[in-house]
């Protein structure tokens, strides 16, 4: 989807509408009810929202329809986050918002005023890879690589969820804090699809980091 082109189209149409409205307004002077309708905010007026992305503040002015994913990719050129299905099923667009992983395709940028967003670009420390990135390289946890930014963001958040004691559907007794077995990792990563099916190596990479962080 080409968002910039979209916006230009809307601006053009709004100008046409604005010109039309002005002509109508002249003809409805003395009709307060009609004039009231004209005073409502325009649905296509851009909205400004302040976000913290990878530790930096950004004020974005966007069409309210802009998803967080499109804001990252099209407005901030942070193209590490990928658009796969654009309907919350594949997980390629996974980012971490206020410490929790979400599908950035199924949320609007304007809903995230003041939120802290971490994308794949924000994980490394300069040239030093994040341990999860390094583990994916070490275990060959990818083939084509398109799903990988989402897989890695998801895996980083998974470890934090596990540390916080969250259960999963693979947890036999939900009142206990489960051990991060292979079955637990697979279940917790089910929101990230890999068309190349690098799953065994992805699970191995996550186990490696999880076990390393235990020691």
């Amino acid at each position, binding site marked *: 989807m080409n968002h910039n082109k979209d916006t230009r189209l809307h601006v053009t149409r709004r100008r046409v509408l604005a010109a039309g409205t002005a002509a109508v307004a002249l003809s409805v002077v003395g009709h307060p009810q009609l004039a009231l309708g004209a005073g409502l905010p325009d649905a296509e007026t851009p909205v400004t929202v302040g976000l913290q992305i990878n530790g930096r503040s950004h004020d974005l002015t966007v069409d*309210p329809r802009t998803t967080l994913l499109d804001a990252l990719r099209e407005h901030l050129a942070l193209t590490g986050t990928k658009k796969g299905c654009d*309907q919350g099923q594949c997980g390629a667009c*996974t980012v971490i918002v206020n410490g929790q992983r*979400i599908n950035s395709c199924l949320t609007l940028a*304007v809903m995230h005023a003041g939120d802290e967003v971490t994308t794949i670009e924000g994980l490394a420390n300069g040239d030093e890879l994040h341990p999860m990135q390094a583990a994916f390289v070490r275990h060959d946890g990818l083939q084509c690589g398109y799903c990988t930014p989402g897989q890695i963001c998801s895996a980083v958040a998974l470890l934090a969820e596990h540390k916080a004691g969250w259960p*999963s559907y693979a947890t036999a007794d*939900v*009142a206990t804090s489960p051990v991060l077995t292979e079955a637990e990792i697979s*279940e917790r990563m089910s*929101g990230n699809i890999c068309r190349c099916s690098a799953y065994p190596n992805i699970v191995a990479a996550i186990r490696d980091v999880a076990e390393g962080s235990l020691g």
Partner: protein
Amino acid sequence: MKPFRYERASGIASACTSAAEPTAKFIAGGTNLLDLMKLQIETPAHLVDIGSLPLAEIEETAEGGLRVGTRVTNSALAADMRVRRLYPLLSQAILAGASTQLRNKATTGGNLLQRTRCPYFYDTTKPCNKRTPGAGCAAVGGLNRMNAVLGVSDDCIAAHGSDMAVAMAALDARVETVAADGATRTIPIDALYRPPGSTPHIETVLASGELIRSVVLPPPPPGRQLYRKVRDRASFAFALVSVAVVVAREDDRVRAARVAFGGISYKPWRSAEAEAALIGASVTQASFDAAGRAALRNARGYGYNDFKIPLARRTLRAVLSDATGVI
């Protein structure tokens, strides 16, 4: 997506007033609504974002249960230690649904109000009485293996997709709402959903601008709680059939039982018939089979979903066997 006005609500009363316009919608997590807006199945002219409202707490009630704010995410509810200890059924059911990414966004109220995943509701090239009243139903006589077998009509055989709601139905949850005029009411979860009849586009009893503000869980009923979901793949798929039970035994008899099904109706399907058959019955597979027959007595298949009727009976037997230790 069609253009819309975006409003971040600053208070409950003003949110309800704004959302009372017929073309307005509340948005919380947005995981279902935005998906449908991209397909132009939902085309609100005005979105009222309740993301800043103070409705994200889980608090203990005087009667010994929990009150869950509408904005509590599915993840937060499933991970709450009080829920995990008192209502393990609810944690299990929530964790059986969707993916962690979705559960981190999806909210309690939004989950209850999610719309059906009937493929013909999503396919805008096919007729659907939910999308366009009077257009007809492509699922009756279509590829309907995911559709409902109980409580539906020839105008709509869509199934409700929630796992969470099935557990809540078994737990006798109550929905607390506030309307645009400030009036509040409490609705038993079973009465929240309207049968499709000839008006399948009207899905709940809620009025325009009426906001679910919380869900109340009464103190847990006695007995072992268990949720089982049967689906096409091991994770991240909607239920073909799911079963929630709470069952208590005394010696060789069933002392108390709650039974609810998912995937087979327009709502989470609490089965009074199965419960009546179970209470006082011997703790045997024969009793569990009788309960299953009672529960599905009025079920009707539409071809590709005929299998759901025996599957629901067998899943109930398996869950009751697990919960009572019958082999």
